[in-house]
């Protein structure tokens, strides 16, 4: 007797039952389960892929925009700086001009003052000379009143003063 006879005995009735049952199971599951499920999974996979692609594109765009923004900001900054520098230079120039002008004005004023002073000095000297001459005459008149007439006195004083002014 074969020990495992029962295990190996062919049962074609069971084979037919199994074949029919399994094919029926496959048909039902295939139509109502695997079909919708795999379709849904593919849709989801596609959805996820699309979202990722879109995200990547959006990221690229955002990066590009950011780069643009950065560039624009840099340019603006550079512009502002150049403007600022120009303004500063202008101000500097203006200030220098102003200083120069003031200095010139002061110099002119100093010059004028000097001339004025010179003239005043000359006129003062003239006046002094006249006064001294007059005083000298008066003094000499008093001293020499008796010895010299007026013309002689004047000549003597003039000679004296002539030698004096030339020094």
């Amino acid at each position, binding site marked *: 007797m074969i020990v495992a006879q029962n295990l190996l005995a062919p049962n074609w009735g069971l084979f037919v039952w*199994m074949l029919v049952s399994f094919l029926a199971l496959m048909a039902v*599951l295939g139509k109502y389960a*695997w079909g*919708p499920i795999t379709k849904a999974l593919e849709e989801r996979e596609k959805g996820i892929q699309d979202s990722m692609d879109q995200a990547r594109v959006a990221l690229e765009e955002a990066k590009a925009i950011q780069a643009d923004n950065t560039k624009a900001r840099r340019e603006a900054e550079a512009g502002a700086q150049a403007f600022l520098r120009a303004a500063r230079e202008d101000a500097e120039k203006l200030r220098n001009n102003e200083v120069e002008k003031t200095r010139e004005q002061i110099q002119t004023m100093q010059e004028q003052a000097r001339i004025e002073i010179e003239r005043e000095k000359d006129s003062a000297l003239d006046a002094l000379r006249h006064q001294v001459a007059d005083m000298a005459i008066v003094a000499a008149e008093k001293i020499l009143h008796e010895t010299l007439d007026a013309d002689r006195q004047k000549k003597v004083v003039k000679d004296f003063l002539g030698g004096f002014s030339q020094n």
Partner: protein
Amino acid sequence: MTLRKVEILVFLALTLVIAVPARAVASVLEAPFQEADGHDAAQEADEHRQNAGAEHAAEEAELDVVHHNSDSIYLDFSPFAIVELPRIFLVRRADDSIGVDFFWSTHAAVEAGGYLALEQEGDHGGILDAQLEPASGEIIMDFSITKHLVFAWIVMLMLLAAFLPLAARYKKGIGRETAPKGKFHNMLEALIVFVRNDIVRPSIGAKADKYVPYLLTAFLFILTSNLLGLFPFAAAATSNLMVTATLAMLSFVYTMMAGTKDYWKHIFWPPGIPILVKPILIPVEILGIFTKPFALAIRLFANMTAGHLVILSLIGLIFSFTNLFGPVVGWGVVPISVAFSLFIFLLEILVAIIQAYVFTMLSALFIGMAAAEHDHHEESHDHAQASLATVEAAS
């Protein structure tokens, strides 16, 4: 409480659960326990034959592990109940007409007359294990509902109950427009995606999606059957050779349908081989077409049967030792038997999953090899060879 203590407690509980009823049964039964001993079984059968009909399978004295694992025409819930299954016969009657006989049970078939129970040597007696023969005419085919068929149907109902609601969820938009929600949904989706993305697509390539429904159904059927077989009072439909043969035959049919001109050319006139070698190689190739599905069927059947046989044999050791050396030794063997069968049981869980994977993977590879086009022949061939090596190492 530490994990270690919990483990020990569970182990002791298991020992008691198995040992106490088994001892009770053993002490009630007067006949000695023997494992599939043909000679004694024959004597048993003789005894039973004397009061045939009244005898019941539950009263069997023998623990026959092979018998327990074979298909039967009743569901064995002993010691609680035995459920007889309908008998359906396609018969050629005495007047040469063909008809169908339907009975709700084996007893009904015999009691209604017209069918005789022919008990064979090696049967454990009782009408339930007997071969039924019509009083007149002959049976063309026995379409009786068997234990394994019932469990195959249970598995199919489980699959329908799990995946039709799942599909409904996807139709509602959960998992299609949103992320999958919940353990149930995620777990089942992971299975589907695993089979499609990790088994079918890499093995078959461009035309893979056409074969997803078959391979997915086969994978889930085998996996569920294998795991269901580990429950008490249940049986694995995949531990029946006819069930695995049905699946293997479907794989064979799919492989044949997938075969390209290239595939057939490689079988009937392999290119790049010396003409003198061809007469040797061609028959080998032709044989190979049939050995592949044959191996598929045998592999799954043998793996699923072997584990159950080993577990039952290990439990049976308790009774064998009791008979040989007395009850003290018998009790002493209990912890060892339980420990070993627990180990095998855990191994069985692993095997249940691996074998479902192996069957599906190999079927997909065979289909893929047949469907490969010449352009990427070398590439897919290499892939197939590599995968084949992996799978064979795993099984």
